[in-house]
């Protein structure tokens, strides 16, 4: 019985491995270096968003606005650089500031005013979407300065081209892993999600922990904006639509509990890869994208079901 949690933590890895083996038997192209690199490139944006989402879900919250906030950050960066002629670092800084500010707003509403995260971020989702459309006039921003899309460039490992943004994503995972595991702040995130009353009684400033989590998520969404711009080469006002839910799916598939306090950030990377592998593999098999959405939906319900059942089992 004592080894059950450890076995459960391996679940996402097993699911990922099974999916990879399955698609490898279905398509010769699946296991090529080129295709695996493509999968990583396709998931780097949602992968970074999922880090922020993990932090929030660990505190028993959820952020429905993550992808839309990311899109707004991208529009701000690209418009300021391409249309207002601001220097690229300043434009990027402004985009980061906007996503961070939305994180501050979410965080204050959740921590200081104690509103439910689900409703707060549903509101932010709509606000960020509207601002994005109004500011961009629903137009894609093109003709970006080259330095803005630098992270979309590639370097070669063996014979395979790897995008710089993927390295950024992996580095952010490693950093978050370290902070969550090895620092007092990280452990406080778990404590606040696991038993907020116990955390408060031991003197942890639970409100500050919550605010910190939403602000950190905002910064991460801003970095995801930059990666998205770098990957697509444009500022897209309709970006982030699938990422809103894909990020939550990835976190839950990765074994982080929606009830808070349990999970690990690398699980979210695995969850992100599961979503990415399914999308990629099904595309290679020629399955239409509607079925991909269907399968993602089934996957997330399976993951949440496992979470709920294991929680009941733990009693």
């Amino acid at each position, binding site marked *: 019985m*004592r080894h059950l*949690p450890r076995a459960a933590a391996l679940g996402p890895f097993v699911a990922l491995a099974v999916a990879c083996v399955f698609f490898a038997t279905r398509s010769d192209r699946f296991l090529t270096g080129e295709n695996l690199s493509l999968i990583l490139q396709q998931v780097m944006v949602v992968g970074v968003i999922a880090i922020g989402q993990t932090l929030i879900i660990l505190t028993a919250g959820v952020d429905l606005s993550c992808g839309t906030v990311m899109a707004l950050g991208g529009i701000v960066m690209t418009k300021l650089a391409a249309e207002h002629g601001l220097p690229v670092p300043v434009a990027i800084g402004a985009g980061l500031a906007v996503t961070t500010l939305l994180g501050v707003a979410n965080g204050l509403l959740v921590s200081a005013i104690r509103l439910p995260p689900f409703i707060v971020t549903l509101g932010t989702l709509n606000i960020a979407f509207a601002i994005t459309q109004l500011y961009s006039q629903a137009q894609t921003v093109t003709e970006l300065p080259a330095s803005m899309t630098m992270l979309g460039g590639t370097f070669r490992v063996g014979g395979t081209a790897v995008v710089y943004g993927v390295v950024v994503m992996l580095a952010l995972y490693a950093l978050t892993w370290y*902070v969550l595991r*090895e*620092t*007092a*702040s990280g*452990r*406080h995130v*778990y*404590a606040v999600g*696991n*038993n907020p*009353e*116990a*955390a408060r*009684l*031991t*003197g*942890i400033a639970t409100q500050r922990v919550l605010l910190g989590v939403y602000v950190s998520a905002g910064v991460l969404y801003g970095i995801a904006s930059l990666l998205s711009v770098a990957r697509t080469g444009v500022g897209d006002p309709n970006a982030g639509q699938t990422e809103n839910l894909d990020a939550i799916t990835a976190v839950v598939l990765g074994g982080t509990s929606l009830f808070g*306090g*349990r999970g690990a950030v690398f699980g979210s990377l695995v969850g992100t890869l599961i979503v990415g592998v399914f999308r990629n593999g099904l595309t290679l098999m020629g399955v239409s994208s509607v079925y991909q959405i269907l399968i993602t939906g089934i996957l997330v319900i399976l993951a949440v079901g496992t979470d709920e059942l294991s929680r009941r089992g*733990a009693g």
Partner: protein
Amino acid sequence: MTLPTDAGSVVLQARGLVKRYGHVTALDGADFDLRGGEILAVIGDNGAGKSTLIKTLAGAVVPDEGEIHLDGRRVHFKNPLDARRAGIETVYQDLAVAPAMSIAENLFLGRELQRAGILGRVLRALDKPRMLRETVAHLAELKINVRSMDQPVETLSGGQRQSVAVARSAAFARHVVIMDEPTAALGVKESGMVLQLIRRVRDKGLAVVLISHNMPHVFELADRIHVQRLGKRVAVVDPKRISMSDTVAVMTGALRADELAGETLA
């Protein structure tokens, strides 16, 4: 960490505590005396102000009137953190632990040991080996047996969980440990284990305040019993010289304190 106060001298004292909630008077001029190295049980019927009294001493409630003295110095606790900084730790009834976190993490929750140098100061990086070592030492000192300090608290029995909560308080308290119904949620065997543990905490030199509804536990453990009734302390009795039924009679008002024989008072 423990600075044993001279046995017998008063460690924590309160005089004339008043606390009103609207038109309800929870404390109506309550006094309180806790001596060094003793277990003082606080008993009282529902609504006697027992819980408000304890919260006042633990810093969770600020009294409208009255004074609290710790080791002879007047203190003003604005929140539980103030009381903790002054050396008063509280074990709350509802097992205030984070179940998914390990024993060592729970012991140091909110007071994590940080590494020396830049990692500790800037990133608040944890000194996990030292936290583990000190957890082992604290639990050994109180003779608490668990398989591994790395195991999540939720894998422990109710009594073991409560033991972790008690060990946490004993590890950090310098003067006083307040225990609010520590055996309320436990079975007979588990209760025995926690009662034994409370004795060891006292034998470490700490003064213990025990709030309990369980008269047999109170009589088994307490050196003195503070009887609270209608917002006041009506008597302090000696459990070795008074019967359980007389004590309950004073608590419920069936017997007045001045009707008790002099030697039963403590």
